[in-house]
């Protein structure tokens, strides 16, 4: 499809955000700000053991405490459930998916597993009483380390399985064994993707209201996925989908952690049903560290086969991926979102990928910004640097030699990259960072044995986002479609309501989507209201994750405008008594060719509403919906370069510069896109240098609060230097691609390649993330 070039006023400009006014003044609708008459609070009692048999739950003291209305164990609520919590992605037919009940009944399987609830008249009283619940645990051996969970004799997370293996998933193409046998050079690397905690600054929260006589429920939840939550929670609670309304009000960040359907949502619904009163639950941060999904926790082995010149011919990847104790909404599929990308932006011929999903006695893992693609990018980009070292080549030259250069490009792994220009972004990034000058400085420091060494690291990445073509999702056994929907409602007084199926929580959809409609329908930005995140207002939607909102929902909106314009044209032609082919359309106005007679979309909207003079058979009203199922993923790419200084005496790593040149296709709002990239890079840098969720031998989360899990502050991060190249996607009329995850996908590899580059004079070829001063110092001491 050709990219349409229309006259644009708003698209491509940094329109200040319409979202900001209430956020800046505190006039917000976070779930925690909402109260209802008669509302009760719930507090969840959580297991302090990683693995324990629940021999008994004694509620008597809690039940007698001040303000307590009810208290229930997992067994008490067992009859409430129509089904277990959903896992929507059974990645193989034989995948093990033991039932995940909102409260554990017989066994607790990770520290934080919910075992009982106390419901009281206030937040504080519920929490006080929860302390009085006595649970008789029989502690059992546990395993939290993904590398040990498959060992013979490892404690089983689920007794009904004969091992902790959840699934094995494989993808192979080409003659991989032959290519490795014939390779002049091979490298084999092992990398560790540490466990991460997403840390959206708004904790999760749920509030449920009900109309008992009608059996109707409204759930406000700090979620990215109100539509998916409605479908799946209907299955868990037995509340008919038609009687369940889910609202995502103001939502304070997600990063994948709110792309889920959680026990507390199901609990609040059934407790409201059982007690006949509104129920509220607000997560505390340290509680969230246990009860909200984690990210990553994958061991990667990657092998490259190459010719003597450095042409990479094949890549072989083996992943061992921690699922945690249960499968959350899309847990098993997360490592597989990288399954096609272990060849990076290089044209390999042979491809062999296998992932083993493994249960451990830990908080479930699931989507965290990038979800599978940061891991893939990290492995291939680190391995390409390892190959460059082995070949004695500059990592820039090796990358150029291997880049895919013609698009669309079919990957050995089977998918087709829509567009790109990897040389262009590499060129620009090298120019910005002054690559040769940095290399000279590095050589000088090495020469004089400077105690501060310099490292420069590249990440020439590409990724697949904009989830996703429904047929491809079917092929990989994902439980839902990948379409999204938009409705444009032209009101008779000239303003417009836009209903979007995506559900923003910081991304600026209201502004970006207003820009699209302002240009297409020739309106001022403030004449457009964008509504979202309420299943009763927005009947069709697939929500926000996987950098899909613009690439899928935005295209649906663009196409809905086509339908509005087409209908308006019929109305105008009829009203002006001309043939529709005599009309020219430009920015909201139809003009009779060669005359000054014209009529606007707004005037057509009024005519459609009065319905006094419409063409025969035309339905009154000017409101159109488009449901868009993308023909392909979207494929951003680019080049990130990190320059680090390492104090070899202390091991401290200082990120001196960070250059990012991204190609995300057509840009609607450069300011918002840059903001997405800044935030994405910050999270990837945090993975490389700061963050790690650590369990001890007994399965306690040692990094159990913000005090000992290192979310970086402004003081730890530099400014990032950004630029863009632009390869519009040919698969949609705007040429847009996703951007929400690119920064997090590209940056860990850039930073760690820089760290390893700085340390290469010591013979160091790998450091685990995060590259803390202690880790770096130890590596240097061992190497000296």
């Amino acid at each position: 499809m050709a990219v349409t070039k229309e006259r644009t006023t708003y698209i491509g400009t940094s329109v200040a955000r319409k979202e900001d006014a209430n956020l800046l003044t505190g006039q917000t609708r976070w779930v925690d700000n909402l109260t209802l008459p008669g509302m009760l609070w719930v507090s969840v009692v959580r297991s302090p053991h990683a693995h324990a048999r629940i021999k008994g739950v004694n509620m008597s003291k809690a039940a007698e405490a001040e303000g307590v209305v009810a208290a229930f164990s997992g067994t008490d609520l067992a009859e409430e459930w129509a089904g277990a919590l959903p896992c929507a992605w059974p990645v193989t037919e034989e995948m093990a998916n033991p039932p995940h009940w909102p409260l554990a009944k017989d066994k607790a399987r990770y520290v934080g597993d919910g075992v009982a609830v106390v419901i009281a008249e206030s937040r504080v009283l519920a929490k006080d009483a929860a302390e009085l619940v006595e649970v008789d645990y029989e502690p059992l051996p546990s395993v939290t380390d993904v590398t040990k969970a498959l060992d013979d004799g490892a404690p089983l997370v689920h007794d009904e399985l004969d091992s902790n293996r959840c699934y094995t998933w494989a993808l192979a193409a080409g003659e991989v064994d032959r290519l490795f046998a014939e390779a002049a050079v091979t490298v084999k690397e092992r990398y560790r993707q540490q466990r991460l905690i997403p840390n959206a600054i708004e904790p999760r929260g749920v509030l449920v209201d009900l109309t008992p006589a009608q059996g109707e429920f409204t759930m406000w939840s700090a979620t990215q996925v109100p539509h998916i939550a409605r479908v799946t929670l209907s299955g868990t609670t037995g509340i008919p989908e038609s009687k369940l309304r889910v609202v995502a009000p103001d939502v304070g960040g997600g990063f994948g952690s709110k792309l889920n359907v959680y026990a507390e949502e199901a609990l609040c619904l059934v407790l409201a049903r059982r007690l006949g009163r509104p129920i509220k639950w607000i997560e505390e941060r340290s509680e969230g560290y246990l009860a909200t999904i984690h990210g990553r926790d994958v061991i990667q082995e990657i092998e490259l086969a190459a010719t003597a010149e450095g042409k990479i011919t094949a890549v072989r990847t083996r992943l061992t991926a921690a699922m945690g104790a249960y499968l959350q909404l899309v847990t098993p599929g997360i490592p597989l979102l990288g399954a096609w990308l272990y060849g990076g932006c290089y044209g390999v011929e042979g491809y062999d990928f296998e992932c083993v999903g493994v249960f451990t006695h830990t908080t479930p893992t699931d989507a965290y910004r990038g979800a599978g693609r940061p891991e893939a990018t990290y492995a291939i980009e680190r391995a390409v640097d390892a190959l460059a070292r082995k070949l004695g080549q500059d990592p820039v030259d090796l990358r150029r030699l291997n880049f895919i250069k013609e698009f669309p490009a079919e990957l050995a792994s089977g998918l087709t990259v829509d567009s790109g220009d990897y040389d262009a972004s590499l060129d620009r990034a090298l120019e910005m960072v002054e690559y040769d000058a940095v290399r000279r400085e590095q050589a000088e420091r090495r020469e004089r044995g400077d105690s501060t060494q310099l490292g420069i690291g590249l990440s020439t990445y590409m990724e697949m986002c904009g989830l996703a073509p429904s047929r491809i999702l079917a092929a990989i056994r994902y439980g839902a479609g990948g379409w999204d929907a938009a409705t444009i409602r032209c009101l008779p007084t000239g303003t417009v309501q836009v209903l979007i199926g995506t559900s923003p929580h910081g991304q600026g959809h209201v502004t970006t989507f207003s820009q699209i409609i302002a240009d297409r329908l020739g309106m001022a930005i403030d004449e457009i209201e964008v509504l979202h995140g309420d299943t009763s207002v927005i009947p069709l939607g697939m929500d926000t994750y996987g950098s899909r909102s613009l690439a899928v929902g935005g295209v649906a909106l663009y196409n809905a405008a086509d339908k509005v314009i087409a209908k308006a044209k019929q109305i105008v032609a009829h009203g002006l008594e001309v043939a529709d082919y005599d009309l020219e359309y430009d920015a909201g106005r139809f003009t009779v060719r060669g005359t000054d007679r014209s009529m606007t979309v707004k005037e057509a909207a009024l005519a459609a509403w009065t319905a006094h003079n419409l063409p025969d058979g035309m339905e009154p009203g000017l409101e159109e919906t488009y449901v868009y199922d993308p023909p392909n993923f979207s494929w951003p790419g680019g080049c990130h370069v990190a320059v680090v200084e390492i104090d070899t005496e202390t091991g401290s790593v200082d990120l001196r510069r960070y250059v990012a040149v991204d190609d995300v296709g057509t840009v609607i709002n450069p300011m918002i896109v840059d903001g997405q990239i800044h935030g994405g890079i910050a999270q990837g840098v945090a993975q490389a240098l700061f963050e790690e969720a650590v369990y001890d031998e007994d399965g306690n989360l040692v990094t159990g609060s913000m005090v000992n899990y290192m979310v970086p502050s402004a003081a730890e991060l530099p400014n990032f230097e950004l630029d863009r190249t632009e390869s519009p996607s040919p698969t949609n009329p705007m040429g847009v691609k996703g951007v929400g995850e690119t920064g997090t996908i590209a940056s860990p590899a850039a930073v760690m390649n820089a760290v390893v580059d700085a340390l290469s004079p010591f013979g160091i070829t790998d450091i685990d993330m995060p590259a803390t001063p202690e880790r770096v110092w130890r590596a240097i001491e061992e190497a000296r």
Partner: protein
Amino acid sequence: MRRIAFTVNGTRHELEVEPRELLVYVLRERLGLTGTTVGCDTSSCGACTVLLDGESVKSCTLLGVQAEDRDLTTVEGLAQNGSLHPVQEAFHAAHGLQCGYCTPGMVMATVSLLSENPRPSEAEIRLALEGNLCRCTGYQNIVKAVQTAAAS
């Protein structure tokens, strides 16, 4: 219960609070001033930052009773006569917020910083905001917003 009196955003309040009640919950749950948010339980994130006699404090580190006779400003008290405070304007202009959950705390910390140091360097800004966590912006546009406000 203890009876306390204090001023918030220019309005005098008298109310009974539990001695253990944190100031942030007094503001949110007793006075309905929900602009101030709670992002953690360890005084790490700074989302709950307010001004106490003009200086920034994390309102989760104080008990409500400690506000006795003090003068508090929350994010709801910044805009005057329908006009945003220059720091609010600057966060808007510089795209210094995305989801906005940390924003009230960031804005209040910035107001406090600029009253103490009207022309901070970038390093001073980054250090001054060390106690306020944001997960969306990577801080770059927050720093820019502070610089914009300082220049206004």
